[in-house]
């Protein structure tokens, strides 16, 4: 039964991808190209490109892409549901305990230690996005090349930041705005 197989594969991907985002990639690759012959390696590479170009969490993009390809729209829905089922169960259990015990002083201590670490994790992910916007595709901290610097993009980042801080604009408007400017700068010239 193909639907059951799809569900089970993506259930495992959801269950074992700890740390989010790119941690799920090797698991997806294993399930859809090795355990099952759902995608060729070239198609898997296409999936990565599309995931990077489209909004939404990468694991969900992969679920829909593979599900559609193997069993149409029902396949896409089942893969997506499979992927988020472990999250739903585990997060709801954690949520239940958190709201029940969050006022205990021992839990407060743990949370007090956690919060600055979370800020750093968000900042470190933000840094890679910033580098991607300022330079080009493969830039990481280890291979910055000043020649690859993307000046229009840096100006847009600075301007966007200024508008956000000064006028408290809706972030989605800023993103759409820079997208439209992008069409003018990169698409027409």
């Amino acid at each position, binding site marked *: 039964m193909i639907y059951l197989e799809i569900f089970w594969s993506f259930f495992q991907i959801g269950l074992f*991808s700890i*740390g*989010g*985002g790119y941690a799920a990639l090797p698991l997806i690759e294993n399930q859809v190209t090795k355990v099952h012959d759902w995608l060729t390696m070239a198609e898997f590479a*296409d999936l990565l490109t*599309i995931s990077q*170009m*489209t*909004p*939404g*969490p*990468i*694991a969900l*993009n992969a679920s*829909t892409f593979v599900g*559609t*390809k193997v069993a149409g729209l029902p396949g896409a*829905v089942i893969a*997506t549901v499979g992927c988020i089922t*472990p*999250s*739903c169960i585990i*997060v*709801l259990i*954690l*949520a239940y305990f*958190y*709201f029940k015990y969050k006022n205990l002083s021992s839990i407060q*201590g*743990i*949370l007090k*230690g*956690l919060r*600055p*670490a*979370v*800020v*750093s*994790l*968000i*900042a*470190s992910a933000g*840094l890679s*996005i910033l580098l*991607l*916007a300022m330079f080009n595709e493969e830039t990481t901290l280890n291979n910055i090349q000043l020649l690859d610097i993307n000046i229009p*993009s840096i100006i*847009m980042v*600075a301007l*966007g930041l200024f*508008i*956000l*801080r000064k006028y408290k604009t809706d972030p*989605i408007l800023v993103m*759409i705005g*820079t997208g*439209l400017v*992008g*069409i003018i700068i*990169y698409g027409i010239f």
Partner: protein
Amino acid sequence: MEKNLKFYWTLFISTFSLSAFTIGGGYVIVPLMRKKFVEELKWIDEEEMLNLVAICQSAPGPIAVNTSIMVGYRLAGLFGALLTTIGTVLPPLIIITIIAKFYTAFKENTIVNALLLGMRAGVAAVILDVIIKMTDNIIKSKNLISLAIMIVAFIAAVIIDVNAALIIVLSGAFGGFYYNYFKKAGGTE
């Protein structure tokens, strides 16, 4: 806040639009959710949001889905969690289903590429804005331990490339130990 139809609609449409417009996966959506629910709607305070994100980081699965479930549950129980989960899952499901049908054309379209390249700058600006505010909050708290945890976690994440889940577990363990035993035993404050 009053839990009327408008409240549930705002809850749903907030997660839906964040998922629909945010390129770059989980770590981009999480700061934006913070901006939406903490700064704009003021439904959750900063400390609690960081607690929720920390808990979601230590659970498996796509981080954006986890955080949606958590925020939905916090604001409106199980029904809230259902609404925010559907809100997060729908955009990738719709967008990828369409794109999967003609992805070669999509991949090579100049206008689409220019739009996405531009949007990347907008995303970077929004993330930068959020990071500045969060870091500022930690610095303003004048808690040297928090500041130290933040710096060490940032170095661990960016330079040593330590897994996010491990950073969460270690900083939580440190916080639990430090605030519950060390400080009680003879610390100041």
